[in-house]
């Protein structure tokens, strides 16, 4: 009997599990590899919810197009629009599916899915399961995958570390090499397609809200094998996290969605108990500066405001560390327990203080990688995606695909809250039919029947790297300390506020650290469950992505979404004189158009193995569906700028009558 083709999925979070179960349904044999039992993947940490248009918002004027519009506007127009449009239109059926799979979504009294409001939108689109939505969604998919495992369609390889893709002479991916984290066996896995679903790379920043597996090493290993990386410099810093020594724990945006208010005492370092500070002495800075969105401004804006209130304005609530209050104490306890129980428990458990009684202390933390492996798509005439097309989610290495947080496709310069769970499940489900179709007529035979030499030599390369590390003499660099230093540099220079001189200096420092990491010595040279060598390898593989983030940030001289360089900010209007104000607005719009002409482009990084550094180029963004417009949340003079902007759009539309849909400024 001829061997059946197989698909290897690397990573068992929402994206990987969704792809696995959909492929299984399409009668494709799947191998699913993960560093951890898939039920323990980082998706469990997502708290707040998952967005879709729903019957109620629809009757308030909402529709899929508006969800799409909010997503690209929130992302500062940096994402290609067709995939985002497709995702927004898939959102209601994705939630229906998760509902059928038994996710314990919160319910209305009548038994419908309850919804809450999240940042960056005016509609209650977000379905949620207590404050552990990610966990509940992941479990539902984990259960389905287990069902297929019992049926013999899916094989799991848990506690395995992806080491490299295997490329044939034509450069097509034919499988991967991986290492068993228990026995340390290194093995080749022939596969007709490899799908990477390995999540974000927060550990490059040392401490973040991400789990310990989120090192970015699998992505880096594909990047070093030639896959292009997109928009690396766009890293979301979540506005509200609980500072901790080992990790920065997320305090979900849903805390604000359910009415949480962010404030600081007007008097710097007011040492009174926060509950004793009267209303008029509290500075609700988000509500004052952004009356329309209030505490629910998009994440990049909330983050910068909290950062600036503490760092620039010196209003931190603690004298010796940075923090603001996130206050829920005005909401009845029973309501808090019902809607936010899970996240409040986290605060209580790790801080030893009950946030139902005392305002929480929070500060921004690295949270999500908008950037990731570059992936392709096939557009339809009306701006959606062609279903089951082989190009959808394909990386630049033929046969290698990427889905979920590790691709760069859906969130542009800034991700909206409750859109990540959606993009993970959507991209997982969406990639499957294209792979299944291609397996029907594979050219060049099934991977498992290719000459063994290809797989053996790939395995040997990894065995050599492994053996070389184990054989080193002691006295070299300590990988754990180098990781701390890398994290400190990245957090200081490449998070909320970025300056070119600091970024340039950071690159030099990171290159030096990279060379030191080459000389790591292991404190464990054994060959059984050696976590020391696994960590050292992942540390070494952090540097290519760290350089991608830093060089991308250094070169991009503008502000867009999460990437903020004060030197290049377009300032608000200063004049009170109407004519002068109008002139300033015209200038502002000119500058905005010019900025988009120059920078409304995807950053594309390629690994240069000779220089052991990266090359950067830029690609145009498909903004053909929604013309880019200024993001004016809270800017002084926003109304005048908006007026000028509208007039220009109309003027552009009128003379020819067809240019209305043309992208502005490109």
């Amino acid at each position: 009997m001829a061997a059946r083709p197989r698909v290897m999925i690397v990573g068992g979070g929402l994206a990987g599990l969704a792809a696995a179960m959909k492929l299984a349904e399409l009668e494709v044999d799947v191998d699913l590899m993960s560093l951890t039992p898939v039920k323990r993947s980082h998706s469990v940490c997502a708290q707040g919810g998952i967005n879709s248009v729903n019957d109620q918002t629809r009757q308030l004027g909402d529709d899929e197009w508006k969800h799409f519009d909010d997503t690209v506007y929130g992302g500062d127009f940096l994402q290609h629009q067709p995939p985002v449009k497709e995702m927004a239109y898939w959102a209601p059926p994705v939630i229906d599916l998760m509902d059928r799979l038994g996710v314990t979504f919160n319910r209305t009294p009548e038994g419908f899915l309850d919804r809450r409001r999240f940042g960056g939108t005016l509609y209650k689109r977000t379905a949620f399961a207590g404050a552990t939505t990610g966990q509940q969604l992941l479990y539902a998919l984990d259960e389905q995958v287990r069902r297929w495992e019992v049926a013999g369609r899916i094989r799991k390889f848990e506690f395995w570390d992806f080491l490299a893709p295997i490329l044939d002479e034509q450069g097509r991916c034919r499988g991967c090499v991986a290492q068993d984290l228990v026995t340390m066996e290194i093995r080749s896995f022939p596969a007709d397609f490899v799908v990477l679903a390995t999540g974000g790379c927060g550990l490059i920043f040392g401490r973040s809200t991400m789990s310990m597996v989120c090192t970015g090493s699998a992505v880096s290993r594909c990047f070093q094998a030639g896959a292009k990386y997109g928009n690396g410099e766009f890293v979301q810093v979540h506005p509200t996290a609980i500072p901790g020594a080992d990790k920065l724990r997320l305090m979900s945006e849903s805390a604000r969605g359910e009415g949480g208010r962010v404030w600081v005492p007007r008097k710097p370092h007011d040492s009174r108990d926060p509950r004793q500070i009267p209303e008029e002495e509290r500075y609700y800075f988000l509500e004052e500066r952004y009356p329309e969105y209030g505490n629910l401004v998009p994440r990049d804006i909330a983050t910068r405001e909290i950062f600036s209130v503490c760092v620039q304005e010196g209003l931190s609530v603690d004298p010796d560390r940075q923090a603001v209050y996130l206050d829920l104490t005005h909401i009845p306890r029973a309501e808090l327990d019902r809607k936010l129980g899970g996240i409040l428990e986290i605060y209580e458990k790790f801080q030893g203080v009950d946030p139902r009684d005392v305002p929480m202390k929070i500060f921004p933390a690295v949270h999500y990688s908008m950037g990731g492996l570059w992936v392709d798509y096939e557009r339809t005439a009306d701006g959606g995606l062609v279903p089951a097309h082989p190009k959808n989610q394909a990386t630049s290495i033929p046969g290698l695909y990427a889905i979920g947080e590790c691709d760069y496709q859906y969130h542009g310069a800034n991700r909206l809250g409750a859109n990540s769970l959606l993009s993970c499940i959507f991209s997982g489900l969406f990639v499957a039919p294209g792979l299944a179709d291609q397996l029907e007529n594979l050219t060049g035979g099934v991977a498992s029947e290719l000459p063994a030499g290809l797989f053996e030599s790939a395995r040997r390369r990894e065995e050599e790297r492994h053996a070389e590390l184990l054989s080193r003499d002691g006295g070299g660099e300590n990988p754990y300390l180098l990781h701390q230093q890398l994290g400190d540099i990245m957090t200081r220079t490449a998070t909320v506020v970025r300056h070119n001189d600091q970024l340039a200096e950071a690159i030099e420092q990171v290159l030096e650290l990279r060379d030191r990491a080459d000389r790591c010595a292991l404190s464990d040279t054994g060959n059984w469950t050696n976590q020391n060598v696994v960590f050292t390898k992942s540390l070494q593989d952090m540097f290519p992505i760290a350089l991608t983030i830093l060089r991308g940030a250094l070169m991009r001289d503008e502000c867009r979404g999460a990437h903020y360089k004060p030197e290049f900010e377009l300032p608000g209007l200063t004049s009170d004189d109407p004519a002068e104000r109008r002139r300033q607005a015209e200038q502002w719009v000119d500058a905005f158009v010019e900025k988009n002409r120059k920078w409304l482009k995807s950053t594309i990084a390629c690994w240069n193995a000779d220089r052991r550094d990266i090359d950067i180029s830029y690609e145009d963004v498909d903004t053909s569906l929604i013309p880019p417009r200024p993001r004016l949340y809270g800017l002084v003079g926003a109304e005048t700028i908006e007026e000028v902007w509208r007039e220009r759009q109309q003027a552009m539309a009128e003379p020819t009558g067809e240019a209305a849909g043309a992208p502005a400024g490109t």
Partner: protein
Amino acid sequence: MAEPQSKPASIDSFEVRILRQEAPGRASYWERHRVDYEPQMNVISVLQKIAAKATTIDGRSVTPVAWDCNCLEEICGACTMVINGRVRQACSALVDNLLQQEDPNEIRLEPMSKFPVVRDLMVDRSRLFRALEKARAWVPVDGYYELGPGPRVSPEVQEQAYPLSKCMSCGCCLEACPQYTKVELTRLSGETDEEFQQRKRATYDQSFIGAHAISQIMLFNMHPTGKHEAAARLDQLTAPGGIQICGNAQNCVAVCPKEIPLTTSIARAGRATTAHVIKKWFDR
């Protein structure tokens, strides 16, 4: 919940005693480390410090201690171990609290005793996941095509299901259970990997399924679609390794970090299996 912890009086550093084991089948041994005190440490940050230093209290260089962890938010279940004699997650075990409990100078870390040790504090919990297969812990949907929304669910039912659905498969309930005893198999010579896995599964299936899986069965038997397979799940509960092994010690519910009402699930499962067996007897 405790008030904000204060630093235990006059402590600049403390001892950590770890029960280590190099590999399955090897002897275990205690190793002592000294860690500098910092405010707001948890056991994960203690283990991170020990890994970075890799030197014992008497200055001997040793391999870093192996342990399992991931989310560090007590929601993935990975870092479960026995800390000062109590099974729990290392991430939510705060040093200040631990030092106030027993010995103000020492913290004791051991691997869970009901699962085979892989190395040091890492254990093999595959039996726990096998139980979820046996329990058929999933909703048997027709497929993943667009078929409209799921069944309507009242808030009361959701509020009953959600706590059960928070089980993170950490194994605390099994560690605390007197009837759940360790099953450790070693590969026989000449046995293929596949054969070994198969033998493991068969042996696990003869042993107690555990409170976590009983509770999952009640969760899925409650779901409007899940209950279509209720009988098959109850069959598993009356098979060898089923609910009859439970000795009603109630330790499981006491140690569950997610406060899942495990004994309520077990009581309901007991009633359901009794009814199921009688029904089957009449249906013969």
